[in-house]
C-alpha cells in the first residue's frame, strides 16, 4: 500500500483549490454582468421586463442550487451537446449569482432617496443621465459591502459542482479520502482551505460596511 504524507495530501488539495478559485471568479464576474443586465430590467420602465427580472430572481432564489446544477447538466444535454461538467457548473453558477446580485443591487438603488430622482429630473436630466450621474454612483458605494459578502456565498456554492463531477476542492477532498482513508483529517483540511479563502472576504465586507457607514453619518 502506498503511504501518503501530510504534504502529499495538502499539495493535492491546494492544486484542486485553484479550480475552486477559477470557477468562483468566472461565476462572480459572469454573474455580475448578467446581474447588471437584469438590474436594469428590474428597475427599468418596461413592465414586461420588470416582471421577467422579478420572476427570474424568485425562481433562482426559491430553488436549490444543486437542482439548478442538475438541470443545467441534463438540460443542456437535451440540445444534443455533450456537456462537460465545467460548462454546466459555469452556466448554473453564473445564472444563480446573477439572481442574487440583482436582488442585492436593487435594494441599493431603492435605498437612494426619492428626492435625488426628483432633483435630477428637475435639472432636466433624462433617465440614462439620472442613472449615470446621480443614482448609480451613490448606489455603488452602498452596494460594495454586501457584494463582497456575496462573493463568499459564490465560493461556497462552487463546492456543489463536485456533485456533477467537476473536480475542485471538494471533489479532491473526496478523492483523497478514498485513497488515504483519513476523512477526519482530509475534510478538516478542505474546510480550512475554504475558510482561508472565505474569511478574508467576510471580514473585509464587515470592515467596508463599518467604514462606509461612518462616511454616511458624516454627511
Amino acid at each position: 500500500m502506498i503511504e501518503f504524507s501530510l504534504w502529499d495530501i495538502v499539495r493535492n488539495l491546494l492544486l484542486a483549490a485553484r479550480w475552486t478559485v477559477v470557477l468562483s471568479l468566472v461565476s462572480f464576474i459572469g454573474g455580475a454582468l448578467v446581474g447588471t443586465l437584469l438590474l436594469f430590467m428590474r428597475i427599468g420602465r418596461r413592465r414586461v421586463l420588470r416582471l421577467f427580472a422579478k420572476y427570474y430572481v424568485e425562481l433562482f432564489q426559491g430553488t436549490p442550487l444543486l437542482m439548478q446544477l442538475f438541470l443545467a447538466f441534463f438540460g443542456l444535454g437535451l440540445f444534443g451537446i455533450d456537456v462537460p461538467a465545467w460548462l454546466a457548473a459555469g452556466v448554473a453558477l453564473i445564472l444563480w449569482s446573477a439572481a442574487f446580485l440583482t436582488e442585492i443591487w436593487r435594494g441599493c438603488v431603492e435605498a437612494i432617496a426619492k428626492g435625488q430622482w426628483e432633483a435630477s429630473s428637475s435639472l432636466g436630466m433624462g433617465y440614462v443621465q439620472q442613472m449615470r450621474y446621480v443614482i448609480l454612483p451613490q448606489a455603488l458605494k452602498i452596494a460594495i459591502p454586501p457584494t463582497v459578502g456575496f462573493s463568499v456565498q459564490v465560493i461556497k456554492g462552487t463546492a456543489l459542482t463536485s456533485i456533477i463531477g467537476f473536480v475542485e476542492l471538494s471533489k479532491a477532498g473526496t478523492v483523497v479520502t478514498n485513497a488515504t482513508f483519513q476523512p477526519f483529517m482530509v475534510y478538516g483540511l478542505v474546510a480550512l482551505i475554504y475558510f482561508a479563502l472565505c474569511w478574508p472576504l467576510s471580514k473585509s465586507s464587515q470592515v467596508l460596511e463599518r467604514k462606509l457607514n461612518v462616511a454616511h453619518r458624516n454627511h
Partner: protein
Amino acid sequence: MFDYAWLAQYWPVLLKGILVTVQLIAVGAVAGTALGIACAWVRSLGPKWLRPPVTAYVELIRNTPFLIQLFFIFFGLPSLGLQMSELQAANLAMIINLGAYSCEIIRAGIQAAPRGQFEAGASLAMTPFETFRHIILVPSLQRIWPALCSQVIIVMLGSSVVSQIAAEDLTFAANFIQSRTFRAFEAYFVSTAIYLVLAILLRQVLIAAGSFIFPRRSGR
C-alpha cells in the same frame, strides 16, 4: 421529447422524499434557532470566557460550505467513535449550520434593543439573564423575524445536499427516479418545482408562526 409517464409509478417515492425534507427542516429550524439564541446570548451578554469559542464556531461554519460540514460530520466524526445514521448526520449538520447563521441574525436583534430596557430590568431587581429572558428576547426575535425566515428557507434549499450522504430526501428521490427511468431532466424538473412550492409554503408557514408567536404586533 419530454415524458412524464413515470410520475404515475414513482409519485410515492417523491412523496417520501418530500416528507424527509420537511422533517429535516422542521427539526433543523427549531433546534437550529434554539442553538442560535443560545449562541447569540453568549456573544452579546454571556460570560466573557465563552465568547471566543462561540465566535470561532460561528465564523468557521459561516465560511465553509455546507457540503463539507456534512461530509466532516458523516465521514470524519466516526473516526472519533461518533457513528451516526444518514438522517442523524443530516439533522445534526443542519442544526449546526443554522445555529451559526441564526446566531448572527439574532445577535443583531439583541444589539438593537434599547439600553433602557436592560436598566429597567435591573431596576426591577431582575438578574441579567432574567432581563434577557423576559424583556429582551421576544422583541429581539420579532425585530429580526423576516431575516430569520429567509435563512430558514436558504437552509431548506441547501438541504438538497444531504442526498450526497444517502439521506433519502427529495433530491435523493429525484436521483433514484432518474437512475431507474433515465428521465433525468424530467425528474429534476419536477423536484425543482416541488422545492419551489415548498419554499413558498414554508415562507407562509413562518410568517404565520411569526404572527402567532408575536401577537402584539398585529394589535399595534
